[in-house]
């Protein structure tokens, strides 16, 4: 399993394709089977696979949310298109694709179109840098966690750009709220991550996952997990922290003026970010693609086992977010700021101290030892 990585698969595919073409058209065989050409094509295929995986998962995630929300609300969710409504989102997507894109008369064209595009693109990059299993790993960046969080926090800027250029008072207020919200959740999220970094001694997501082989970090760092999940809800702009698009007072907030495919961009990017948020929770606190050591090895030795367990955990974590959405009302901007600064930051700081203490002690009675903490 560990031998076949995503990149090696892409490279093999690229080589295969080019060799087949070369076999059909012998004169260009030598130039196109050159190692540089194969590498370029392999990188392209690698990107295409990532893109396909991210889009497929996003759409599946929307289905999962619709079904879960339906059940929480005592109804069934999507039912008719495809098995159990699995293809409903594709139908909705095609419908949005066919719609005309409307631009308000006084809107700023550059901002109006670049906002959603940049929002979408940054969210896709985010999915590209996250390791999903030992094989699905786009290079072991030493600072991948920092990079992910940095790209994650781009979003309010693009939201604000598109809100401001929509030339709509509701959009503008939504954009303002998005910017204000960022102040509330960005610090707690980083502090919560710091305690994980202290415990694992690394900023690399792959290393953080392997550091959890004795125990998953959610046990000793449960406070950090709570802060991280709460701040993630704010980062993903989901209920109870979906103030920027609070439909009760702001119609649809910053994307009020967007329709058709531009709206689909926002929608897809929102769910992509929700997916990435769930993935980060799994990576940082729930052991990533690994299972506890007491699980029989048969459960982890079949092909693609890592991806399977990882996705299972991710969808369960996202199910938690859906549960929260189904049962909590929306907070107010000032209340979110108060919760962020008065509750989350002290809790996150507490967790940082806890992590430092754990590293000093190295071994905890219930959980076991950190493999290489502080080393």
């Amino acid at each position, binding site marked *: 399993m560990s031998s076949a990585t995503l990149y090696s698969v892409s490279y093999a595919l690229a080589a295969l394709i080019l060799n087949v073409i070369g076999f059909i058209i012998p004169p260009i065989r030598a130039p196109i089977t050159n190692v540089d050409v194969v590498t370029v094509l392999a990188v392209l295929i690698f990107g295409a696979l990532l893109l396909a995986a991210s889009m497929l998962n996003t759409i599946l995630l929307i289905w999962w949310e619709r079904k879960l929300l339906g059940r929480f609300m*005592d109804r069934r969710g999507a039912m008719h298109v495809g098995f159990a409504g699995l293809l409903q989102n594709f139908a909705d997507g095609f419908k949005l694709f066919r719609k005309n894109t409307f631009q308000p008369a006084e809107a700023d064209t550059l901002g109006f179109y670049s906002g959603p595009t940049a929002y979408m693109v940054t969210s896709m990059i985010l999915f590209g840098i996250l390791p999903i299993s030992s094989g699905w790993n786009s290079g072991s960046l030493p600072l991948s966690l920092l990079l992910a969080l940095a790209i994650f926090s781009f979003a309010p800027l693009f939201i604000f750009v598109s809100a401001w250029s929509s030339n709509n008072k509701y959009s503008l207020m939504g954009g303002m709220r998005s910017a204000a919200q960022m102040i509330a959740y960005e610090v707690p999220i980083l502090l919560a991550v710091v305690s994980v970094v202290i415990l694992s001694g690394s900023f690399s997501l792959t290393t953080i996952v392997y550091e959890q082989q004795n125990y998953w970090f959610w046990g000793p760092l449960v406070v950090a997990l709570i802060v991280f999940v709460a701040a993630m809800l704010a980062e993903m702009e989901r209920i109870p922290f979906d103030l920027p698009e609070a439909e009760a007072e702001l119609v649809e907030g910053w994307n009020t003026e967007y329709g058709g495919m531009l709206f689909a961009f926002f929608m897809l990017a929102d769910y992509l970010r929700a997916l990435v948020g769930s993935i980060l929770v799994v990576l940082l606190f729930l052991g990533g693609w690994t299972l506890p050591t007491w699980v029989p090895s048969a459960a982890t030795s079949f092909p693609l086992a890592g991806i399977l367990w990882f996705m299972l955990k991710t969808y369960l974590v996202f199910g938690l977010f859906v549960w929260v959405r189904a049962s909590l009302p929306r907070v107010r901007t000032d209340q979110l700021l108060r919760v962020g600064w008065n509750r989350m930051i002290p809790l996150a700081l507490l967790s940082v101290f806890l992590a430092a203490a754990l590293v000093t002690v190295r071994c905890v009675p219930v959980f076991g030892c950190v493999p290489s903490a502080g080393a």
Partner: protein
Amino acid sequence: MSEMWINMGPQHPMTHGLWNLRVKIDGEMVLDVDPEMGYLHRGIEKISEDRHYNEVITLMDRCCYVAGFAWEHLYILAAEQALHIRPPERAEYLRVMSDEFQRIGSHLMWYAAFVQDLGLMSPFLYGMRDRDLVLDLFQAYTGARLTYEYMRVGGVRNDVPPGFTDRARKVLDWLDDRYREYDALCMGSTIFRERCDDLGILKANDCVAHGVTGPMLRAAGVRRDLRKDRPYAVYKQIDFDVAQADAADVTARYLVRMEEMRQSNRILRQVLDWLDHHPGPMMADNLPRWLGAPYAPIGNEGYLLKRSYPKGTGFSAVEEPHGEACAYVVNEGALHPYRVKFRSPVFSNISAARQYLVGYHVADIPPIMGSVDVCVGEVDR
């Protein structure tokens, strides 16, 4: 951001109907509001002057689309007084039963819309689901779910079908459990309390000054309910309490409406028991021929029949789910009323918007207006 006016409405998720709330804001703060009504005016009072007494009932259902029975009852009481008719007792019990089921239905609709304004998704569907059971009951004895045309001058159209009371009791039992569930979802939630406590305060003297009535008035600590203070129909014979709270905020209005639904259950149990044991006629037996349901005579025939009938005026006041509604009907000796005038409680309640909206956040507008329970159909009529 400098100060600016925004239009919340006429097409806005907050309005729950067709009206416009102009809001002057500075950032997130509300500096001034200006409610504008009139987008849904259909001239119901004027149209009534051209219609036979029983044909006006059709319009009453359209007055408030979530509380049709309350408005039917309101008009019928005034019309009967103007026409000197007394309905049989069983008809009055059936009217009270319809009224109270309508109150539950209307409050469930309010609950659904109110929690939706707060961003609560699931209780919205719970409220609508349970309201459906009430609508099913309406369908069972009137044939309609929203616009019933059930009450008549001099009685009601028909009796409830066999087995109806048992079915209604089952719905009441189910609803009793659901009220607990609603409370757990709302009062048990810290965020809900954070959002609703000390919000949209309208003290008792302000309520009186602006003519605000109904649950808003009772939430301000005033124990006033027309069913107790000016009993109509058979409310005098029925044992129930007036829901009341003291905080005068959104939470208090929530509590008052929840308690009213429980009290409605209590009233309904008594009414259903009475209906089981007291069969009787549906219509008054001394009705003049020109008023006979369901066919009213047309043209000269009716005028000739009616010429000798005594004139009169009728006034009625009913505790509608939204507040105190009043009606005035003038009978000048024609087949149709000479003049019909209504007082809509919601009109007064949202006219006082400046008193309970200014000084709060923009995000507070939907829950506050939700706690007012706006029904635009009766505001504009």
